[in-house]
C-alpha cells in the first residue's frame, strides 16, 4: 500500500468533508464509489447486528467521483486482506487511520496484481468451484477493474461484490 503524506491538520478538513462527527479512534474509508458503501460493510463483516459504532454517508457530492460514499468504523483498524477486498469494489477509496482524533495515516487502496482466495469464480464449471484443494486465483486488470480466473480464464467485470468470499 502506498502511503501519502499525513495531513498536518486533517481533522478540520475531514470534518467539513465528511458531514459527520469526527471519531476518536478507528478507520475512515473515504472516496468509495457511490452505492458501494453497503458492500464495504459486507466486506468488513458489519451486518445489522453489529456492536461496532459505524457511520455511513451515501451519495455525498464529490468533484472527482460525482457521488461518493464514506464509511467510518470506530476502534477498528483494517487488515490488509480487507483493504484488498475493498480495492476491488472501490478502487479510488482512501483509508484514513485515526488515533486521538488525528489522521495518523492516509493512503489510497492499491489494486493488487493478483488476488488469491478473495473472490469466487463466476464459472460454476471452474475447477476452483469443486472439492479440490485449490483456492481461487485471479489476475487483476485495473482499468476497468476486471478479474480473470487463472484456472478457467473466465472474466468477472461486473458485480464483483457479489462474488466476494
Amino acid at each position: 500500500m502506498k502511503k501519502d503524506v499525513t495531513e498536518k491538520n486533517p481533522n478540520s478538513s475531514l470534518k467539513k468533508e465528511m458531514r459527520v462527527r469526527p471519531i476518536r479512534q478507528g478507520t475512515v474509508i473515504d472516496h468509495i464509489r457511490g452505492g458501494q458503501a453497503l458492500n464495504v460493510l459486507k466486506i468488513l463483516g458489519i451486518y445489522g447486528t453489529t456492536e461496532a459504532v459505524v457511520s455511513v454517508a451515501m451519495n455525498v457530492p464529490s468533484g472527482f467521483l460525482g457521488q461518493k460514499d464514506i464509511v467510518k468504523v470506530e476502534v477498528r483498524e483494517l487488515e490488509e486482506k480487507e483493504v484488498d477486498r475493498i480495492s476491488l469494489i472501490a478502487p479510488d477509496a482512501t483509508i484514513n487511520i485515526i488515533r486521538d482524533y488525528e489522521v495518523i495515516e492516509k493512503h489510497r487502496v492499491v489494486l493488487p496484481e493478483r488476488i488469491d482466495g478473495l473472490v469466487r469464480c463466476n464459472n460454476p464449471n471452474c475447477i476452483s468451484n469443486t472439492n479440490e484443494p485449490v483456492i481461487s486465483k485471479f489476475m487483476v486488470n485495473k482499468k476497468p477493474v476486471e478479474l480473470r480466473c487463472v484456472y478457467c480464464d473466465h472474466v468477472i467485470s461486473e458485480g464483483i461484490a457479489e462474488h466476494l468470499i
Partner: protein
Amino acid sequence: MSRHIISMKDFSRDEIDFILNKAREFEQIAQGKKSSLLSGKILATLFYEPSTRTRLSFETAMKRLGGDVIDLGAIESSSVAKGETLADTIRVIGNYADAIVLRHPREGAARMAAEYSKIPIINAGDGAGHHPTQTLLDLYTIMRESSLSDMRIALVGDLKYGRTVHSLAYALSLYHADMTLISPKQLQMPDVIKKDLKKQGASIRETANIEDVIGDIDVLYVTRIQKERFPDPAEYQNVAGIYRVTEELLGKARDNLIIMHPMPRVDEIDPSVDRTKYARYFQQSFYGVPVRMTLLAMAMEAI
C-alpha cells in the same frame, strides 16, 4: 525443453513454429518407421471424459516413439469413484509415469493439476476450456495442406461452447489470419474471447451463413454442435443440424479450399464431400500423431 502444455496462450509464435517444424520430422515415424526416442519412458493417460481419437493418437504417438502407456481406465472403476481428488490422483500417478495426458470435464483442471504435478501435464481438453494439442494439429494441417501465411479461414458451428475453436482462433491471431466466424446468434463466440483476439490484432468478421464466404476462403473449419456442452437441451434442439456442408455448397468454393473438422462429425459434413478434393479431415486426424509425438518428446526432454 520440459514443461506443461496447458493452453495455447503459454506458447509464443516462435515456439509454435518450432513444434510444427519438428512434427514434420516425425511424420515418417508416425507412418511406421522405427524409433526408440522415448524408449523406457512411461506416459499416463487420465481421461475423465470419453475420448477416442485424442486418447488413441496419444497412445499411438507414445508407442511409435518406443515408449509405454499406462491408463487410468474407466472412471467408474478407479479411485476417482471412491472420491479421490484430482490433486491426489495427479500426485500418485506422478510417482509412476514420466508425463500425464489429462482430459477433465472441469475448466482449469489441467492448470490446477500442473500446480500439483512433478511431471509434465499435457492438457487434452478441460471442459469448455483449452485443448492445445488439437489446436497445434489444426495449425499443422493448415501448414501441410494449405498455408499459414495470408490465410483466410472460416470457423463454422458452435463457437460459443466449442473449446477447439477458442484455442484455434487465438493461435490463428498469432498468424494474422483473416477470420470469419459463422454461427447462429445463440452460438456466437463469447465477447470476452473476441476482445482478446482483437487485442492480438486479429481481423474478425461474423455471419450466420456459410454461403456468404465460401467463395473467398482458403480453409473451412467445421465443428460439431456438441449436445453435451449445452446447459439447456431446448437450446440444443434449436440449433442442431443448422449447418451442413454439401457438394452443392462447394460449387462456389475456390480451387485450393481445404475443409477441416476436429471429428467426430455427426451431420455437419455430408459424406459425399469426403470424395471431393477439398476434404482434409481424415488427413487432419493423422497429423495428430506427429504433432503429439513432438509434444511428448518435448515434455520428456527428448528434443
